[in-house]
């Protein structure tokens, strides 16, 4: 079920009202059932994959806690293999098979290639698999007690607001909340609904609108000049942020209405002054997952410098692969890894340059230059993320640098662009306000009741008048 669907408009209040009406001891079952309905709205049969990993990890958690020494590691390894195995089969099998078959072709080995599986990727597979893995790892590390209640553990993996696209929670943060009795709290409900409203504006009004432009251009790369591709790349940077951050706002808001507190996933990443800061503000739940479960176990930065660079690079390549089984994502990850390593290597030179140049003497201008540079670098990497193929991606880059020309817009694209820029202007003002004030969303959180409710009304009117209601699913669902 999509957050931006009509079904969810009925599902959410119904589930929430029943949740509060039920006695506490039945609530976990209600939420679990609701989560199953939510997930089954996509492809019902794939819920069996979830049940499989839930059972494995539930048993592994208890086994790890009850064991000593090498057996603990054995149970953890079994759990990780099961989870990664599911990912490998459903997400990566065809990618690796295609590449092996291609390699065999190149080597003129004409024997029968490996078979390709004809299946659709289960929605949000990487998200719930990573959340499940974080549970067994934390139990193994002794940071989390093994959950004995199968239903509660299943709910930890399947809690519907964050089931298909995160935030990827840690057991320490969310498991105990399922045992707590949440009474309806007007402040939490209002805060949650406010987040949902802003998330919906980001998704339906901005992300889905710019997506029309991006799809029209990126799906027809040879026909478009560098200027059109540059504009589409800028729009994609906005699209992916509004799509995913919008989803996160709705997820966090929906959970908050029921009294649950999910972790923050985005902190205005496009106001970052460096790539390092960008990754501390973008998809925080995934970045910290990789930091805690891959980067630090690899040695982090407490290793010789070359090994440190290797650790950084490999984490980003794996992060790219996590996003999708395609070379475009791997290149995107590698590019971000390269950015970070280059930032470390070049830090001394850049500091020296900043000292001698006049730019650094004006902190405001210097900060703007840093923000714009970071945004440009991130947007350049997004080209590989969005392009349909690696060939397309390189063609886009080539055209942007060599084939700038006039904008060729037809009537509908001009209108789309006007709507898109009005949405982007709103986003910029809101994020600017949030960045330099303590409030969440301006006006929506105003101290005057009249201003606040009037801004809610404007938000709803804005969605009805400017929203794209056929925009379809969230980008990150495919991961």
């Amino acid at each position: 079920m999509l957050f931006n669907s009509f079904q969810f408009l009925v599902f959410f209040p119904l589930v929430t009202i029943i949740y509060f009406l039920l006695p506490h001891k039945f609530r976990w079952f209600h939420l679990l059932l609701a989560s199953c309905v939510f997930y089954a709205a996509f492809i019902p049969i794939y819920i069996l994959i979830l049940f499989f990993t839930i059972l494995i990890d539930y048993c592994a958690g208890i086994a790890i806690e009850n064991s000593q020494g090498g057996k603990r590691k054995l149970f953890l390894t079994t759990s990780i293999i099961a989870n990664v195995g599911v990912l490998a089969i459903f997400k990566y099998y065809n990618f690796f098979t295609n590449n092996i078959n291609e390699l065999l072709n190149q080597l003129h080995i004409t024997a029968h290639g490996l078979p390709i599986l004809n299946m659709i990727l289960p929605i949000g597979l990487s998200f719930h698999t990573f959340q499940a893995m974080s549970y067994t790892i934390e139990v193994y590390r002794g940071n989390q007690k093994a959950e004995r209640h199968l239903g509660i553990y299943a709910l930890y993996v399947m809690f519907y607001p964050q089931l298909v696209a995160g935030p990827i929670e840690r057991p320490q943060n969310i498991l105990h909340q399922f045992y707590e009795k949440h009474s309806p709290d007007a402040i939490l409900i209002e805060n949650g609904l406010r987040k949902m409203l802003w998330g919906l504006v980001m998704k339906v009004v901005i992300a889905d609108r710019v997506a029309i432009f991006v799809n029209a251009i990126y799906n027809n790369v040879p026909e478009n000049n560098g200027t059109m591709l540059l504009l589409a790349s800028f729009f994609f940077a906005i699209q992916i942020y509004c799509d995913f951050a919008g989803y996160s706002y709705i997820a966090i808001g929906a959970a908050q209405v029921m009294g649950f507190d999910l972790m923050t996933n985005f902190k205005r990443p496009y106001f970052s002054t460096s790539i390092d800061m960008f990754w501390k503000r973008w998809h925080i739940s995934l970045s910290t997952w990789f930091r805690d479960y891959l980067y630090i176990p690899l040695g982090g930065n407490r290793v010789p410098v070359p090994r440190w660079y290797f650790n950084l690079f490999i984490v980003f390549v794996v992060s790219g692969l996590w996003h999708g089984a395609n070379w475009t994502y791997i290149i995107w990850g590698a590019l971000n890894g390269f950015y970070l390593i280059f930032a470390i290597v070049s830090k001394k030179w850049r500091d020296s340059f900043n000292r001698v140049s006049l730019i650094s003497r004006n902190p405001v201008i210097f900060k703007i230059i840093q923000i714009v540079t970071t945004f440009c670098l991130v947007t350049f990497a997004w080209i590989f993320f969005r392009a349909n193929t690696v060939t397309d991606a390189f063609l886009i880059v080539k055209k942007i640098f060599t084939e700038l020309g006039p904008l060729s817009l037809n009537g509908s694209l001009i209108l789309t662009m006007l709507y898109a820029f009005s949405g982007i202007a709103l986003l910029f003002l809101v994020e600017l306000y949030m960045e330099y004030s303590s409030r969440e969303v301006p006006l929506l959180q105003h101290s005057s009741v009249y201003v606040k409710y009037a801004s809610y009304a404007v938000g709803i009117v804005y969605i009805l008048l400017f929203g794209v209601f056929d925009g379809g699913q969230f980008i990150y669902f495919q991961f």
Partner: protein
Amino acid sequence: MQSTSWKALSIRVILFIVLMILLDIGLGKVLKYNYLKINGGATKACTYVVNEAKDDVFILGSSRASHHYKSSLIQDSLHLTCFNAGRDGEGIFYSYAVLKCILARTTPKLILLDLTTDEFAEDENDYSKLSFLTPYYDTHPEMQPILNLRSNYEWVKVKSSLYQYNSTIIKIIGDRLRPSAAEKTELGYMPLFKEYKGTLEMADNPKSRLPLDTLKINCLKSLIRDVKKVGCKLVVITSPVYLDMSNCPKSMEVAKNICAQEQVPYINNSQLQAFMRDPSIYADQYHLNDQGAGIMTNMVIGEIKPLLSGQATYIIDRNLQTSALNKKDTLSRL
């Protein structure tokens, strides 16, 4: 939270809902007034066709219909009133919805339906493009079943007056403030004046690779039956493209077969050699410019005259494999 806070919140929520309903109705009325007052361009043409047109001949279809058929030439040659109801980016659903409104009000003498070369390709976007017609949803129950194809809950969504004017506000403001900036139309026909400079290429439209949409196919069948039921004449046409379409015959094959079954003339002019020689009569690969539209309209007039003068049976009885007409005659006229 204390009970007084809950009471205050409940009152606020109820007041807010009432305010939202009033806002929806009020703003909806303002938008409706301004939308119907738009005095030019595609919106004006659409309002005219949906609400009041009683012409003898209607041209239905997509941008290829609106840019290819000069209504004034048809009007002068056939001595019948004619209006071009084609619209950019639209397809068979739009044509059928508009036709439903026309037939609810009048019985035209002739309908020319222009189908694109990939008319029946399965494309979700073609459903969302029906949004151009949602401002007329309330007042035209006859088109509601077609507009409801947009989504499962469309009938609920359109209860909001604001939703009916979704994504139209910039157009409304622009056309109301500067009517002269609206698209130029002549009885619905929208001329293009560019000249295509490219060479003839093999068609490689990604749409051609998509599976066929049975809903669209059924829509054409229903359209044909509705037109026949009221005794109106119908000619289905695929107009010229500056592309070699030999790889993409799927939709045209379907159109040909349906028309043959329903005994309706189908004229596939998409690959007429006379139109493949000169790119200067095109604005782009899919659209004729004003000069090309003139040639094309005159050719079609010549083709449909026998139908209107009672010599129609020979068209219907002929083998409808490619075109119902004598290609030699056609080409000699060009």
